[in-house]
């Protein structure tokens, strides 16, 4: 008990320290860098919540039974969407600072002038609000309904969720594409890529999976989630393994087509990232996001080994942060920023996310006890 208390104090302390650093960085490092960091952590938080919600919806969509015992974990992680919304509303202040399409010069830019309405601050904000509204709708139906089922034990929820899941997939596709196109690729509005939304989806899904795996292992260490075995872990590990390949497939496909075609408006995006210090970061990203987890998870035993899975999940989350950093920060210039402002932001937001998730993990049942498929899910064997 005492130990938990100390940990809790440490977490709050670290978060508060991070908050001080965040405030200080606005004045010391300038608004551009401040808002870039803010957008980075908004996107990370929002896509983590959205990716987790996608896992929940996927289970309902395909009527998976094996994942019912661990479903409460992504459901709790998906509630991160709620704190992500105020963070996102504050992030709207970044528009005139960071996003070229929202600056007054854009009216004279031959390309941006044509997209003026789409990139304008009011329409950008409206789209973001629509994305928030749609994701809260998904959260209310899928997670809210599941929490209510704990007490009502009403199997009608399963039918409702199964009917809603296909619609949510369409909503999800729209929301993640809006996040990707507006918040990430909006930083370089001359550049565009059709596959970019899918690329961001792959990262979001992976981060949701990694956080779910990590939380499952965390709860298992505390003897909760009784009945969840290596077979369940194996499926989570298999998903992680498969989607590291998916992420790199999409990432490389996008890169290779642009590299081949060599169109000036397209290659500029990669030119920045493949020269100078960014080159090393790009190589590190490919290694940490694909090569290392791929070989770490390639054997059958590795996919259900808790120690291995924990390391890979932490690695995946770190690599995902690096991935979004790699998407956002080159817009600030050829020199990658990494110093105390970035560290304070990381401290503040990681602390906040961990505190939120920890709080969510303490509330209610650890498994969807009202779900009629729970016993079948616990029986799951490979």
């Amino acid at each position, binding site marked *: 008990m005492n130990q938990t208390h100390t940990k809790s104090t440490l977490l709050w302390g670290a978060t508060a320290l991070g908050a001080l650093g965040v405030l200080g960085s606005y004045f010391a490092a300038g608004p551009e860098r401040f808002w870039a960091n803010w957008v980075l952590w908004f996107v990370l938080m929002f896509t983590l919540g959205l990716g987790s919600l996608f896992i929940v919806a996927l289970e309902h969509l395909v009527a998976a039974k094996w994942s019912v015992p661990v479903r409460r974990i992504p459901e709790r992680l998906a509630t991160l969407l709620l704190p992500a919304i105020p963070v996102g509303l504050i992030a709207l202040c970044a528009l005139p600072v960071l996003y070229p399409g929202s600056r007054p010069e854009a009216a004279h830019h031959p390309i941006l002038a044509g997209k003026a309405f789409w990139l304008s601050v009011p329409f950008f904000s409206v789209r973001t609000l629509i994305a928030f509204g749609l994701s809260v709708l998904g959260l209310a139906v899928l997670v809210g309904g599941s929490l209510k089922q704990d007490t009502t034990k009403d199997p009608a929820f399963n039918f409702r969720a199964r009917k809603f899941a296909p619609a949510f997939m369409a909503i999800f596709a729209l929301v993640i594409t809006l996040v990707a196109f507006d918040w990430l690729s909006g930083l370089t509005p001359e550049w565009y890529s059709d596959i970019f939304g899918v690329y961001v989806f792959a990262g979001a899904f992976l981060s949701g999976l990694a956080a779910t795996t990590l939380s499952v292992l965390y709860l298992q260490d505390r003897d909760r989630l009784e009945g969840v075995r290596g077979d369940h872990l194996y499926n989570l590990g298999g998903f992680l393994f498969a989607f590291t390949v998916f992420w790199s497939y999409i990432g*490389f496909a996008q*890169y*290779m087509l642009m*590299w*081949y075609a*060599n169109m000036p408006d397209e290659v500029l995006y990669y030119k920045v990232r493949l020269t100078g210090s960014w080159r090393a970061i790009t190589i590190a990203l490919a290694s940490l996001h694909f090569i290392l987890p791929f070989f770490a998870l390639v*054997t*059958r035993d590795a996919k259900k080994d808790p120690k291995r899975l924990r390391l890979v999940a932490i690695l995946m989350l770190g690599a995902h942060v690096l991935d979004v950093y790699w998407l956002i920060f080159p817009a600030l210039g050829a020199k990658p920023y990494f110093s105390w402002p970035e560290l304070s932001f990381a401290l503040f937001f990681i602390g906040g996310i961990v505190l939120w998730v920890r709080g969510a993990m303490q509330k209610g049942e650890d498994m969807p006890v009202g779900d009629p498929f729970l016993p079948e899910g616990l029986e799951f*064997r490979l």
Partner: protein
Amino acid sequence: MSETSYSVLGIFDTPDALMQAIPQVRAAQLGTVEAYTPYPIHGIDEALGLRRSPLGGMVLVMGILGAITALGAQYWISAIDYPIVTGGKAPSSWEAFIPIMFEVTVLFATFTAGLGMLFLLNKLPFFGHPVLSSKSITGITRDRYALALEADNEAFDSAAAARVLKEAGAVEVEVLPAPDRSPFLTSDYILRTLGGIFAACVVSGLAMFFATKWFPLLAPMKYMQDQPRLNPQKASAFFKDGHGMQQPVAGTVARGHLPTATGTQEAAAVLVNPLPRTKDVFNLGRKAYMIRCEVCHGAIGNGVGSLTAAYGGKPANLQAQQFRDYPDGKIYWVIVNGKNAMPAHAADLTETQRWAVVHYVRALQRAQNAKDEDLKVVAP
């Protein structure tokens, strides 16, 4: 001679009874324990003590081998053996190799998985597994669960095996004969297989022949007959001038060709003879000169050839001061285009031959106007 039995089958009514019997039967150590069930039973792999399949490792190794093979082959072809710059990319660009590497990795891995499983691990082809001809097989494929003790050496005791299975709770016991492990690649088998392939080819060939004959609209693979193209010597609406064949762009020289004299003779004066003055070149020029030029211009180029006497023509005397002062390009121009009564020789002499003739004409002029110091050069 009594038939050696291959295995003893013990039949159980429920999967639980089968699972309970496994440790007991394994403990007897009479032979290999194998189970036959209508559907997979969870945990039976561990209970039987089956070793981990080596297939995964084989697939990984072959997959990596596939990636390396594709990388090596492409690198050797594109960067070493026949480097061609495509789309402005360096011949050794790794990005272009990745899709093929991916495909070959998948190819090697899937073939290893499929063929390795069937032939290396399952040891196919194996016609007529004895269990398939047992009496119990109908039950095993439906609602019975069989545990088999299979012979792993010559001293297999089927009576003891049957007793162990009975004690373990088998409701029924069946002794199976040894399987027919005779080689399957007999001449009969090969002939039948080849005959079958031949018959299939004949049937499908005939079917295709008549199908395309009776239903000509179904002619397969004729799409490329209908592509837009330019035919030589034919008109085309594609270009502005209406010609299918286009003139080369002014001032350009095709790869592997030498500059041609197309303008006026004065314009050709700037052309420089690209050939070196070697013995081979002079021999080439001499040969061409003797075939094409000598009849008119004479063996020493003085304009007195054999045709002069016969027809009274007046070819140029190449030894005249006017022609000795000609730059190489102007002589070349005359060979290509002809002059006065002299016809063009472009069709008769290759570019190399023409320039060699120019060299040879220069040699003739110098030979007829030799100076004292020329003798010194020849001395040794």
